[in-house]
């Protein structure tokens, strides 16, 4: 299997993959055939390989991409881009040489195509896929009214028509460009408009004499005109500059914070309230209420987000129909934000309820009773004794919940897709950072911009890492308190 894999990799010239495979094969063999020293590695290697390929490599690759201009229009290597620019620049100029055309086929009428070209001076050329060769007058053979040469059959009009699409795509390369057909009986030479000069690393437009210099992965003229396509190039930290850290990015970031913190606080508040309501020992039927309340959490979140989207629909949705209102739930920025928080409350409160119930049960009741004996009212006892203890128990979960919601793509994308749109910005008013990143990379009008999206990914990671580092210290502090 490994050998098959390697041969495929080598045949695709994917040397990085091949080298990685060889190295890991050597490591694996050494480990499993090696002696006692290698026992721990035997258990660690399977997971580590997946970790290396699908986590570590993508992380490194993300950082690398964030420093390049990779994306639509810049996804080739430089040499491919140069070749493509030159090929695309081939076109008919006004003084193009015209030829009379006889379409030939090698051997039988279904054989490989070739053009027999005669110019105004009566010079004859044979054009094949490889190029043109001059034909001396003596080589020409008559085939009825048509001319051909040895080894080729001239196609009559019917035969040529049946192969028309093939003929249209057929191009004869020539030193100055290429020759292609105009109709079934005429052809003309196209010339290459732009040429690359390797010595000076510039592109020159042969007609206008405009010179294009290399700049950030494409050729740009002095007047700022850019030749397409460009190629992948290292552009330093320019993507980070393009993120408009003070404009769109800041707006999206602030809403992400509001969304994540708001979701945690709302779900925690409702969950805690319900946990207290349900802590009464004399209440009956708690089991059934609890079952009903856990259901939102137990359903897959893609489904619930979409169901709410249907219910929020301004004209047809059940909420507006039953309430008799026409609230623009998802169509007006602030309503849309409120709707997202409402849906996330619905999704998240059962979890907080379960967690708070568990944590409340874990708090020794004698502490609270002692406080009541000392004269504290129920509320004071809760505020001063139960709540701080509860907070210690659930603080790590609140932070985890915050981190989860910070990147809660499902709910934002499936409920609003980040809409309503904000004019002059590619991020909508409910987009959070992760959905903004998705839009830059995969969705959208102006094509994929992997470099910019990767830069945003790196920034989101830095934010999440900073918050996590902070929360680690904070929870340690809590532990010390205990």
């Amino acid at each position, binding site marked *: 299997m490994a050998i098959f894999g390697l041969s495929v990799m080598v045949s695709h010239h994917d040397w990085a993959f091949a080298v990685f495979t060889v190295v890991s094969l050597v490591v694996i063999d050494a480990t499993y055939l090696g002696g006692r020293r290698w026992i721990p590695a035997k258990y660690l290697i399977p997971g580590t390989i997946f970790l290396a390929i699908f986590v570590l490599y993508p992380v490194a690759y993300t950082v690398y991409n964030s420093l390049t201009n990779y994306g639509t229009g810049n996804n080739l290597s430089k040499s491919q881009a140069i070749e493509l620019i030159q090929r695309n620049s081939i076109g008919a100029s006004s003084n193009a040489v015209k030829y009379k055309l006889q379409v030939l086929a090698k051997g039988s009428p279904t054989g490989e195509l070739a053009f027999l070209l005669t110019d105004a001076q009566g010079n004859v050329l044979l054009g094949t896929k490889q190029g043109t060769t001059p034909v001396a007058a003596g080589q020409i053979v008559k085939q009825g009214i048509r001319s051909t040469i040895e080894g080729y059959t001239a196609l009559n009009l019917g035969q040529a028509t049946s192969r028309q699409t093939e003929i249209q795509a057929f191009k004869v390369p020539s030193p100055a460009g290429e020759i292609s057909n105009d109709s079934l009986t005429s052809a003309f030479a196209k010339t290459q408009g732009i040429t690359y000069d390797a010595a000076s690393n510039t592109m020159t437009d042969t007609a206008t004499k405009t010179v294009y210099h290399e700049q950030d992965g494409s050729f740009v003229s002095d007047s700022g005109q850019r030749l397409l396509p460009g190629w992948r190039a290292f552009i330093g930290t320019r993507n980070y500059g393009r993120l408009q850290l003070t404009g769109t990015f800041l707006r999206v970031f602030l809403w992400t914070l509001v969304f994540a913190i708001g979701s945690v606080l709302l779900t925690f508040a409702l969950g805690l309230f319900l946990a207290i309501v349900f802590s009464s020992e004399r209440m009956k039927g708690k089991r059934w209420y609890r079952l009903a309340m856990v259901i939102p959490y137990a359903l897959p979140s893609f489904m619930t987000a*979409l169901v709410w989207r249907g219910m929020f629909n301004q004209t047809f949705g059940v909420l507006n129909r039953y309430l008799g209102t026409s609230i623009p739930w998802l169509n007006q920025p602030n309503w849309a934000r409120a709707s997202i928080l409402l849906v996330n409350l619905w999704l998240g409160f059962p979890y907080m309820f379960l967690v708070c119930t568990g944590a409340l049960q874990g708090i020794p009741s004698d502490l609270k009773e002692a406080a009541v004996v000392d004269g504290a009212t129920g509320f004071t006892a809760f505020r001063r004794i139960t709540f701080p203890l509860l907070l210690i128990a659930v603080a790590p979960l609140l932070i985890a919940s915050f981190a989860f919601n910070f990147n809660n793509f499902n709910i934002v994308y499936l409920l609003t897709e980040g809409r309503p749109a904000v004019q002059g910005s590619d991020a909508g008013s409910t987009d959070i950072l992760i959905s903004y990143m998705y839009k830059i990379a995969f969705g959208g009008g102006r094509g994929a911009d992997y470099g910019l999206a990767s830069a945003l*990914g790196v920034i989101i990671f830095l934010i999440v890492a900073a918050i996590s580092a902070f929360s680690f210290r904070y929870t340690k502090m809590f532990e010390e308190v205990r």
Partner: protein
Amino acid sequence: MTATPATDRSRFQGRSGTQRTAKGWFVDTGWRHVVALVVCVFALFPVLWVISAAFSTGGLESQKLIPESVSLNNYRTLVKRPFWRWMLNSLIVGGVTAILTVFLCACAAYAFSRLRFTGRRGGMLFLLLVQMFPNLLASVALFLLMQRVKGMFPSIGLGTYWGLILVYLGGALGVNTWLMKGFFDTIPRELDESAVVDGATHAQIFFKIILPLAAPVLAVIGLLSFVASQSEFMIADIIIQNNEKQRTAAVGLSRFVLAGFDNNWGAFAVGALIAAIPVLVLWLFLQRFVVSGLTAGAVKG
């Protein structure tokens, strides 16, 4: 010792317990039922609404909570799409991911828990650090990576659910390894040692002693990973692309309804309900493990 708190509690309850009037009942317990009912309506209304949508004949605009006419038309619309294929894909993705995740984690956790080697502590901390970078953030790189894989091995690259499984497995180690290591640590080492005396190899200890004893935690981690994969949307959407037959239920149904909310609403409701069943059942089963596990872990710190 145990008797004292019990009598204390009965004294506290006795204070309000003497007033058995209707008003007293309401102040003490009744309002709790009112709150509970309100919350239940909030929690269940959308669920009832999907159920009703699944069976009613009208579209989004005319649907009532109790459908006026019931039919299976929506189901017939749904199966014009490869819906059962999506379900099967979801189960394969979830099942394979869960089993391999458990295996990879158990191996790593065993090494961290039982074996002593240089870099053990560093390895554990490294896993914790890596876990902080959610693979969502590297989705662009994952996409490009799988695109490259697709060029060489089309059957496991971009546009296939096998590629998706590979990506999910990349995130297998991490928090799960920590959880499992914690559980392995609670299995007495004397068991291993006596097995060693009896001539067992490390592999025998792992497969015949540790794994069977850790079965409950293995099951829970496997089920959690299964459930998580059933509603994952972003990575699945990016990796599977427009390859409709390879989609998971989450991506297939979402893309289906997003393509036309008014027309596909009822059919989506049917599909969503069917897709929710495995997850719902597992959750109700897992609920107590999750609550006790999470809070126990939290209190331990």
